[in-house]
Each structure stands twice: as C-alpha cells, then as structure tokens.
C-alpha cells in the first residue's frame, strides 16, 4: 500500500520525463554535431562549418521562406475558416452537419489526407477526369503546376484540410467554458450582426483558450515532412524535407549539417511563433480600437458564407479523397480522362494482403503499446492530482504543449544520433517511446477535462461507504469514465498511427508501419498500392474512434444515466 502510494506520487515526474526527456535529449544531442563536434564519428570541424554548409545549400533561402510562408498561410487559413464558421453558423443545422462530418476527419492520418488530395487535384486527378473531356476538352491532362508547386499552395491546402477539424474540435471544447450564446445575444441586442457580435464578444475569450493549439498547428505546418513529400515543392523542398534528406545522406559530415539544420528549424519556428504572438497583439489592439469606435460593420456579415464554403470544401475534400483512394485500390486500368476505372480488380488487395496485414499488426502493436503507456501515465497523473494535489498541468497547459511546439525535425536528428551512439539499436521499443512523446500530450488533453469534471461527491460517497482510493478508481470512476477513457485511447492510437518521422528515424528502417510503408511506396507511384495503404492507415486510425463510441454504448446499454457520456 505504502509502496503503491510512492509509485503513484512518482507518476507525474515520470510523465514529464517520458514527454520531455526525448525532446531535451534530442535538442542537446543536436547541439554538438551542429557545432562541428561529432566525436563518435571521429569528425570535428570549425564550429560554424555545418551552419555555413546549410546556408550555402542551393535554394536554402527559398526552403526557409517556404517553411515560414506555408506554415503561416496554413495556420491563418485554418483559423480563419474555423472562426468564420463558428461566428456565422454556431447552433445552426448546417453547423451540426459540418461538425459531424469534420470530427471523424481529425483521425485521418496526414499522409492519407495528402494522398487523397493529390489524387483529387492533380491535373490528371479525379476532379479533372470528372469534367473531361466534355466540359474542358482535355484529352490529355493540362500541363499545369498543381502538385509540388514551388509556392507550396498544394501543401497549404493539404494542411488546412487537416488543421480545420483539429482547431474546430479544440474550439468546441473551449467554448464550453466561454458563455458564448449569451455574449452573442448581448452583442446582437446592441445592434451588432451575428458574425461581428461573435467576433467581438466571443472570439477574444475563445482565442485565449485555443492559443496553444494554434501554436501547435503553426509548428506542425512549418515542420511537416510526410505531407510535404506528397504535396510540397521539390525545387527546392521546404526546410524540414531538406533536413531529412541530409540525415539520410551517406556522408557523415551531412549529419552535422542535418543537426545545424535542425537547430535552424527550431530557431525559425520560435521566431515565427514570436511573430505570430506579435500579430496577436496587433490584432488585439486594432480590435479594441474597433470596439471603442463602436462600428457595427454590417459588411462583415456575408463573410459567414465564406466560412461555410471553406469548411464544406474541407470536409468534402477529405471524404472525396477517401473515395478516390477506394476507387484506385480496386482499379486495374484507369486512364485519363475516364471518370471511373476502366477495369476493376481486387489484385492489389490480394497481392498486398500479407504485407498489409503484417504491417497493420506492427502498426497497431506500436500504437497500442504507446497508447497503453500513455493511458497509465495520464491516469496516474490525474489520480495523483486528485489524491495528493500533485498538479502536472497547473499553470496553463504549456508543459503538455511543449513537445508539440518543438518541431519534430528539430529534435529527432539529435535523438537518433544519441541512440546510435549509445549503442541502442533500432527497434520497436525506441519507436514506441518516441511515439509516446506525441501520444502522451494528446491523451492527457483528451482525458483531463472529463476526468476533472467527474462529480467528486461520488468519490466521497464511495469512500464513506468504505471504499479505499483504489476501489473508488477501479469500481466507480473508471467504469463511469469508460467513454472518455476509450476516446482518449482512440486519440492516442490515431496519433501513433499517423507518426511518420519518429518511426522512420528512430526505427532505422526496420520498424515498418502503415505510414512509413505508404510514404515509401509513394516515391514509386503505383497509385493503386498507395491507395490501399492510405485506406488501411485511415481505417487503423478511424476504427478505434468507432469502437470508443460503440463499446460504451453496448456495455452501458441498460444504464441510461451514462447514455450521454
């Protein structure tokens, strides 16, 4: 009992270690090589050589600019879409429909969303096929630069489709703590339109709640690798892709260059975050001036249609992307400009069956292991918080968000170098621990609120009935929180399934998940196989959510009191 108590007290510290340890180690591990110090490889160079090498790479200025512009554009567009949608449509039927359509899309892995988008919007993609040749006259695809465009527009589009559902769900969660409906009612009574009223009355408080998620989006968009490989520019690629290229170059000197690039990426992200933060100040100041002036600006109101259109396009894009992947995975021959495959075949599924199933098994094993560890740690933290007032996420949630606002490309190179130097071979265990870094915060964010919202008087009742803390936990609290716990597990699984870079770099190529497999295949271009892997990846991420909804409904089918949860 005393031992158990001691263990539980250690959990918060352990959680911080699991979450931030690899990040810190990776950043420190990048420092030496970045300054020309790589003793394990017997290499040393003047401290500025690696950075100079990075900066003299052809097109590096454009790579850097691309990271910043695509990151800022994707974040601003996603936030703008969510804001206009919430401002113009909260509570409407259209909103309810969109919310239901967008929520599951959060689980669709980035890579799968990217494949779907690519299959849709390429000049020879499904959209062009559907309208050709009858409407366009195209017998062959037009030579238009859509995918891999040097401006990163396709990449931005891909990022927006993934980040809109994320920001929307984070906003909906935050809105429960903001008295939105009444604030808007007050604004309406003062003569503001619904959109302007919402933006003035609700948005500032909402934004204060979703600031960290917005920073996560910005960091992610600036450093994404898998989506950038599928959609992003190649002449030159964004900085993150460039870093990964350096990491896999045969010459060891490139390691130092990769490390210097990683730190450059970190600095870039931090600087851009600072820029965004400054932007927040400016917008806030302008907003206050606007409010003081008392302008009602009815011209803003029609913008709600823009929000609805953008959000609808996002939802339809991802759904159509999944549909076109289904078609491709069973296509035998499908040539431009046919709108549908000319011949169907299950050959891809049959031939890839063994690989698909073994890869699915490895993917799910890694996802389950990291999610199980995350659940144990998070439940331990929340329980320790409850029993001993050891609050991990006390002031703000910055600790939880920290691993999400450090770009993956910044610390994974150093971490990989450390693991190799330490003689720890590639394998599943390091990959599981690397996934844990990203799974943990999401599981925590998902479970924290319902856990804390649980009526503590039930715990008091149980205790006065003679139940010790463990019995309260296992017999009362966890069963009642079955739904939220399973949802958190589904979130964890989806996060793990979607991980590309940690699997690739820490797994050393030996650990093959659906995501790494799909990305490896994407360089080969057999669209039918890519589609099959993309679909399996989507399924692996979505199915747990279906289970998280379905299992409690079945288990508690005779318990009306839990029907809402």
């Amino acid at each position, binding site marked *: 009992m005393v031992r158990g108590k001691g263990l539980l007290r250690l959990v918060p510290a352990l959680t911080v270690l699991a979450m931030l340890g690899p990040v810190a180690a990776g950043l420190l591990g990048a420092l030496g090589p970045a300054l020309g110090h790589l003793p394990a490889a017997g290499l040393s160079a003047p401290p500025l050589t690696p950075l100079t090498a990075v900066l003299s790479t052809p097109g590096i200025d454009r790579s850097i600019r691309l990271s910043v512009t695509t990151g800022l554009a994707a974040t601003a567009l996603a936030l703008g879409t969510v804001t206009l949608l919430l401002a113009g449509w909260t509570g409407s039927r259209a909103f309810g429909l969109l919310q239901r359509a967008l929520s599951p899309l959060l689980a669709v892995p980035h890579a799968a969303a990217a494949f779907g988008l690519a299959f849709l919007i390429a000049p020879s993609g499904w959209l062009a096929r559907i309208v050709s040749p009858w409407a366009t006259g195209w017998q062959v695809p037009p030579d238009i630069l859509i995918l891999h465009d040097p401006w990163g527009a396709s990449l931005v589009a891909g990022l927006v489709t993934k980040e809109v559902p994320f920001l929307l769900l984070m906003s909906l969660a935050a809105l429960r703590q903001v008295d939105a409906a009444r604030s808007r009612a007050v604004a309406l009574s003062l003569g503001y339109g619904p959109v302007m009223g919402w933006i003035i009355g609700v948005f500032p408080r909402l934004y204060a709640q979703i600031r960290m998620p917005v920073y996560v989006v910005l960091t992610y968009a600036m450093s994404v690798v898998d989506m950038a490989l599928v959609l992003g520019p190649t002449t030159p690629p964004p900085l993150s892709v460039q870093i990964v290229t350096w990491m896999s170059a045969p010459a060891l000197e490139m390691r130092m260059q990769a490390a210097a690039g990683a730190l450059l990426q970190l600095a870039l992200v931090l600087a851009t975050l600072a820029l965004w933060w400054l932007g927040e100040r400016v917008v806030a100041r302008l907003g206050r001036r606007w409010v003081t002036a008392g302008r009602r600006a009815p011209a803003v109101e029609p913008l709600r249609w823009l929000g609805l259109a953008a959000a609808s396009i996002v939802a339809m894009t991802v759904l159509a992307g999944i549909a076109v992947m289904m078609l491709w995975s069973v296509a035998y021959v499908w040539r431009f400009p046919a709108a549908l495959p000319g011949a169907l075949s299950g050959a891809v599924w049959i031939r890839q069956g063994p690989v698909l199933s073994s890869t699915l098994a490895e993917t799910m094993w890694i996802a389950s292991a990291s999610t199980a560890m995350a659940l144990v740690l998070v439940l331990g933290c929340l329980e320790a918080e409850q029993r001993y*007032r050891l609050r991990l996420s006390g002031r703000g949630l910055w600790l939880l968000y920290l691993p999400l606002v450090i770009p993956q490309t910044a610390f994974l190179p150093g971490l990989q170098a450390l693991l190799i130097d330490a003689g720890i071979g590639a394998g599943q265990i390091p990959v599981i621990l690397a996934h844990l870094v990203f799974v943990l915060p999401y599981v925590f964010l998902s479970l924290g609120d319902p856990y804390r919202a649980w009526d503590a008087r*039930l715990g*008091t009742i149980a205790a*006065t*009935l*003679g139940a010790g803390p463990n019995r309260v936990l296992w017999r009362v609290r966890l069963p009642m929180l079955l739904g939220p716990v399973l949802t958190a597990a589904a979130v964890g699984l989806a996060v793990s399934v979607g991980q590309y870079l940690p699997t690739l770099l820490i797994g050393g190529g030996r650990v093959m998940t659906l995501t790494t497999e799909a990305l490896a295949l994407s360089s080969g271009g057999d669209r039918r196989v890519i589609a099959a892997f993309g679909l399996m990846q989507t399924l692996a991420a979505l199915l747990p959510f279906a289970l998280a909804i379905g299992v409690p409904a079945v288990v508690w089918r005779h318990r009306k009191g*839990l029907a809402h949860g």
Partner: protein
Amino acid sequence: MDKGLELRDVRIEKDGSALIALDARIGSGEVLTVMGPSGVGKSTLLSFITGTLAPGFSASGRVILDGLDITDLPAHRRRVGILFQDDLLFPHLSVGQNLAFGLRAGGNRDARQAKIESALAEVGLEGFAGRDPATLSGGQKARVSLMRMLLSEPCVLLLDEAFSRLDAVLRDQVREMVFARARARALPILMVTHDAEDARAAGGQVVTLGPTSG
C-alpha cells in the same frame, strides 16, 4: 465507551481567513442541525468530517467518533455516512449493485443477497435489485441512497442539504424515513441545511453559522 460524534474545537480556515469554529457533541440518536446561508462553509465542515477537505482549506481540532479519534484516518476507514442533496447513485451499477457496494464486506453470496433484498423491502422497493437507477423516481432514488448508506453500517450520519431537491410532499416523507431509520440504529445525526423546516422536524439543537460568527 462514549457513543456519539464529538467535534472538539474545530476551526476551518480558507486561504488563511477563518471560516468556521465549532465545538459540539452529538449523542446516539440525537440530531444537531447546522444552519446558515449558502457559502458560509457548512458543507466544508462535513467534508472535514468525511476526510475529503478540498485544497485551500486548513483545519484544526479533532473529530471523535464513538470515542475514537478519526481526524487522521483516511476517508474510507472513518465509518461516517453521508447523504447529499442529489441521490448520487452510481449510474453504472444496478440498484442491487449499488447496495452491494455499500454493504460491508463479509458473508457469503446468498447472505449478502438476502441483506440487499431485505434492505429493499424495508423501504418498499421489493424486486428493484436489477433496475437501472436512472429509471427510478426521485423518491425511490432517495430511499435506495439511504439504504446503501445504512448497509455500510456507519457510526454517524451526515446530511448535506439532503432534502432540498425534493418537492414539499416528498421531502416530509423522505425526511421522516431518514430520521426514523437513523433513530432505529441509534445513530447521531449532523444535518446541514438552510431550510428552517428541516431544523424544526429534526427537533434537536440548532447551531447557526453566519458570516459574522467567525
């Protein structure tokens, strides 16, 4: 042995400012009513006795139950029963399982089952063991909740605005039932309420806490 609940020089502070000061004794079958407007710290007093004081509060003084100092015992070892204004039945357990949860350990399956059935019979709920608590009426829930608490064989009964959610007719019924069952077991009762009717029905001594009382 001194039966009953004794609060010996209990003082509760919130963030350094005094909230409650109370020194009282409740003998077997007696009722002490603590009155006062909401926010005065009545419920805090009860959470001190149950051992679930929230952070931010600090307390001094001793809680003696049947001659035993329970001040430092964990909540589940204190043998203190409590009823809140909500029935707080565990929604994931059936009525019978709720009662079984309260029933003190020991005895074989059949004996435990029999105890549960007789507890239900005692409040006129024969055959309700398999029911989902969510399908019960307010009065039925209150009765199950009471029996669950009594099956855990507490040595004192705390009532935290226990009747305030019930409508007038039901309130009299339930109150009468609670007091009757408690007296039958010779339990001391500490009742917290803002309703003078509750105090009158209890008939014991009344302490009024107010913002000024310290």
